[in-house]
């Protein structure tokens, strides 16, 4: 069974068609690199998968649960970090993660908070309010709340945006360490990230899927071209 499944998802904002008839399926162990120019519909697709937006047409399933029909069950299997990794700024990192763990109904909330702080290297700033953190730490807090319940499905909207090379490496290291047990979708603008981390590339432009294949086969289709050249070719 595919852990993430979307069938003919469409969504319009007024007269603008943001996502058009998108279908995709992600199995356990796969890491999908979600690529596309700004405004292509990446974030909208992720919001639809996460159940934040309701589709005009089509349906999405997370771990077998329909996002519209059984939202609470679907969301309990999902870790989602929206673009910019929002968090309650006035709470400390520890309080925030504890709140996330409690809302998810984790019995061993305190232990999970402790483990997640350590895994995401946030222990040093655990007592600081989120508002006072640098961007790198903030992004990691967003990542931490998404993995605190060790979900089967992870959807991360630009988790490495604005991080320095070391921090990017760190996020990729944590992701790679847990990827084989999960189905992951990561949106990114970093083409080297796709080659380093992802088992499959889904490229989306003007709300439609332009390609859905492994990075290797994509590169093989355009012999002698680099990833960024292929990206330009497919999206313009």
């Amino acid at each position, binding site marked *: 069974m595919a852990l993430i499944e979307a069938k003919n998802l469409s969504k319009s904002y007024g007269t603008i068609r943001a996502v058009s008839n998108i279908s995709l399926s992600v199995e356990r162990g796969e890491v999908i690199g979600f690529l596309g120019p700004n405004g292509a519909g990446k974030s909208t697709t992720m919001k639809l998968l996460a159940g934040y937006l309701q589709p005009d047409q089509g349906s999405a399933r997370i771990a077998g649960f329909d996002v519209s029909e059984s939202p609470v069950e679907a969301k309990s299997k999902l870790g989602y970090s929206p673009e910019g990794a929002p968090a*309650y700024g006035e709470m400390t990192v520890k309080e925030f993660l504890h709140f996330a763990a*409690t809302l998810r109904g984790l019995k061993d909330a305190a232990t999970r908070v402790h483990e997640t702080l350590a895994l995401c290297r946030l222990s040093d700033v655990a007592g600081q309010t989120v508002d006072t953190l640098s961007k790198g730490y903030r992004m990691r807090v967003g990542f931490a709340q998404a993995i605190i319940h060790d979900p089967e499905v992870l959807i991360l909207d630009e988790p490495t945006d604005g991080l320095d090379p070391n921090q990017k490496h760190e996020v990729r290291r944590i992701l790679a360490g847990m990827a084989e047990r999960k189905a992951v979708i990561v949106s990114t603008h970093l083409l080297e990230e796709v080659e380093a981390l992802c088992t499959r590339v889904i490229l989306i432009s003007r709300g439609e899927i332009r390609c859905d294949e492994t990075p290797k086969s994509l590169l093989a289709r355009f012999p002698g071209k680099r990833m960024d050249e292929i990206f330009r070719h497919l999206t313009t």
Partner: protein
Amino acid sequence: MRAFRAILAREFLGYFRTPLAYVFLAVFNAFAVSLAFFVGSFYESGIANLDRFFIYHPWLWAFLAPAAGARLWAEERRQGTLELLLTWPVTVWQAALGKFMAAWLFLATALAMSLPMVLTVSWLGKPDLGTIACGYLGSLLCGGACLGIAAVCSALTRSQVIAFVTGFLACFILVIIGYGVLDNLLSGVLPAQYVSNVARIGLWRNLEPFTLGILGIQPLTYFISVALAGLGLSTLMIERR
């Protein structure tokens, strides 16, 4: 229930993370007491009851309930945390109810801090404590009704300032309905029975029986309906975002 409790606790404690809470509590009590003493001639009246204290509460709630309620949804929108909250395994109704009750509990805290007024009046004379309790209940319900309006205004926008101003205006209209000035104005254009009907939807006309110790079905229904309508409407607006 677990989610509701967690959200209630976070939101309630959230007030005390910013200076707003302390400003709010101070302003509420300073105004509530000084209006009763200096404008309502509470002391000079020589009567041991608190109706002159409660009479100004619609004005206070009209101003302060939107101040406490402005952040309910507007702040979630501004910070982007709405997307987080609604992709956690909680229903919109759990979140909405937790938030609303936290804000109401905060208003109740402000009101509870005026209890020294009860001690004062008990020391000066022999007040009817049942009447006073009834007045407190009425005031709390009046605050809840204003909060319902504030919740709707907060669900409309990502700006707390806009949420506050629109909330205050809406509550302000409900405050002045039923006051003599507006009644006189309306008498010029409307037949007398309509004027008194219009007054019934004002906050003051519904609070008055409570301050006299009368627990009427109509004012009770009025406050609870306004609060519930505001809660329901704001929740639907967030659900259909």
